[in-house]
């Protein structure tokens, strides 16, 4: 129906006017469910856990929270083990995000060229990203398995000889990094690809006229042009790396010993195993949050500088 006939219909039949809900009501009706969910599951826990982080409390003890001030924060920050796990997580993030960036960007450069089946290959590459992290963890654990896993066979080291990747403290972190890279490089590729495709062709024409070599074009045009999107990919992946939990749980559960005990895994142990130390866990979670926000801010500031220059 056209707009005019709609208006006329409204005039002749007043019934419609009674039934009509105002835009404002519709707006509220649409927003309200989301708001309720957001408040119940995000906003409330956020503030409640902030409160709990200043108390001595365990969800299974039945005792009410007892205010202890900054006691929990002091305990967490003075625990050398926690710092070790932070360092481990930092190392994990650096290795994992670094490799993802290089591999993802390289894949984007390859897929960017239009060739037969490039669309199909792009879709194929994206599959790992779509899988559930726990499933990924579980089946990579099988791949790594020293007795029946295919990896050691592929490396030419059948069972008695090959290393137990996940049980060896030297290899365990690298094994987790490898899985994370396998799963998330496609994400970096996707963002880089959209960045690459947005580079106008005429810049390369101008560069060809200006006698720039392929190498020179890459460093002076391609990379700076993709940089903003690449930075977003790196930002996302860094935040995710600091929150990395499910893949590690599926692969090693933090072991062997504490070789892959990332902060998120440690946090899980404090909060939901043994004593269910809710107060300490809340404080720890807040410290992690503050660190992630700080890192994100550094990235965003750099990103804005890139954008401002562009």
């Amino acid at each position, binding site marked *: 129906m056209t707009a005019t006939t709609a208006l006329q219909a409204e005039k002749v039949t007043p019934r419609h006017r009674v039934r009509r809900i105002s835009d404002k009501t519709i707006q509220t009706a649409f927003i309200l469910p989301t708001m309720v969910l957001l408040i119940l599951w995000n906003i409330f826990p956020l503030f409640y856990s902030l409160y709990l982080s200043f108390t001595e409390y365990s969800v299974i003890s039945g005792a009410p929270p007892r205010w202890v001030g900054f006691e929990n924060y002091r305990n967490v920050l003075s625990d050398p083990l926690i710092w070790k796990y932070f360092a481990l997580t930092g190392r994990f993030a650096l290795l994992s995000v670094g490799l993802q960036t290089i591999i993802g960007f390289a894949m984007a450069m390859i897929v960017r060229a239009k060739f037969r089946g490039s669309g199909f290959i792009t879709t194929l590459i994206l599959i790992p990203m779509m899988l559930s992290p726990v499933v990924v963890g579980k089946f990579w654990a099988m791949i790594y398995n020293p007795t029946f896993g295919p990896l050691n066979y592929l490396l030419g080291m059948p069972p008695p000889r090959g290393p137990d990747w996940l049980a060896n403290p030297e290899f365990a972190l690298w094994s987790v990094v490898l899985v994370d890279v396998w799963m998330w490089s496609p994400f970096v590729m996707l963002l880089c690809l959209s960045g690459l495709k947005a580079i106008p062709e005429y*810049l390369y024409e101008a560069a060809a006229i200006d006698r*720039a070599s392929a190498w020179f074009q890459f460093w002076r045009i391609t990379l700076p042009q993709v940089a903003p999107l690449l930075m977003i990919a790196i930002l996302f992946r860094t935040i995710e790396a600091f929150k990395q939990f499910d893949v590690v749980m599926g692969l090693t559960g933090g072991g062997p010993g504490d070789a892959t005990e990332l902060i998120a895994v440690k946090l899980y142990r404090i909060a939901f195993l043994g004593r269910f130390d809710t107060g300490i866990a809340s404080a720890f979670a807040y410290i992690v949050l503050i660190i992630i926000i700080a890192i994100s801010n550094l990235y965003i500031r750099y990103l804005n500088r890139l954008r401002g220059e562009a």
Partner: protein
Amino acid sequence: MATIELRQVEKKFGQLHAVKPMDLTIHHGEFVVLLGPSGCGKTTTLRMISGLEAVTGGHIYLDGRDVTWLHPSERDIAFVFQFFALYPHMTVLDNIRFPLQAQRVPRAEAEKRVSEIVKMLRIEHLLHLRPGSLSGGDQQRVALARALVRRPAAFLMDEPLGALDADLRESMRAEIKRLHIAHNATTVYVTHDQLEAMALGDRIVVMSAAEIQQVGSPAEVYYKPANLFVARFIGSPGMNLISGRYADGIVYLPGDNRYPVPESWRAPLAQSLKDGEVIIGFRPESAYIRENGALAARVYACDMHGAFNMIHLALGDETNIINVRVDRWVTCPVDAPLRFDIDPEAVRFFDPRTEKALRRSEAQ
């Protein structure tokens, strides 16, 4: 500086010709303008010379060297793009020195050349800005600087003023002319603006429908159009064209007019025209209103153009309107009868079947 030669160069997209096989020689230091309506193949021709577009036939020579299949970077040419194509993430300075850095020109030498160019184009104050924050004219100056700084053998310019405001276009046009005179570098310039072509070109190549229509100096193209297309396309308004019939030294025109053909044209007309059908052409400034003029017409409209007035005359009925340029103090009431003459030196004749201009045997 360089000579550019096109030998049977063509561009086909599938079965469709974007440029039909063409021959063209652009001499050392010459400023050649490719002029034509949009879609006539002029930009494609320029891009083929640059190497940005591959030819589908023919050969391109630069100073006698066959460059047909060489990459743009191996041809020693600079290209100025219509929409500037500056690198948006670099400062003006980085944009201008990009070609020098790409060629690893030593830093001191590069700095010297950049500073010369920016001084000449008066853009010293913009060096640390980004192209996005510049006006169109300044962006084009930067694009010119980037092209000039390389000191290429030839410049190719694709409607470099097309994206600019009218008044800016005028001053940039003068700037380009001065640059050409200063450098005397072979330049090929594409435009659809015939005023620009007239003002800049040593020679104009008029193109239409993927073909060269005429190659000549601005004056030749203007006064001696090779065919009806060029006659209509060049000049604003274009040449007046009226269909008539030739017999025994007279062209019979609409409105019972008889135009006595100048002596020198009678033989060629009698020889070339099969059935006497002819189109007579003359520029608005080549007709003179006179009381005892040979041709009679009626004023259709009269409008002022500032420096002059344009009288629109109807010959016979209103399907034959011609434009006559008169001094600015001459005005005529609408529908008034008028008589006029055509400058016998400036009159042209066209064969309506071939659409080609007829030629006199003596000095053209």
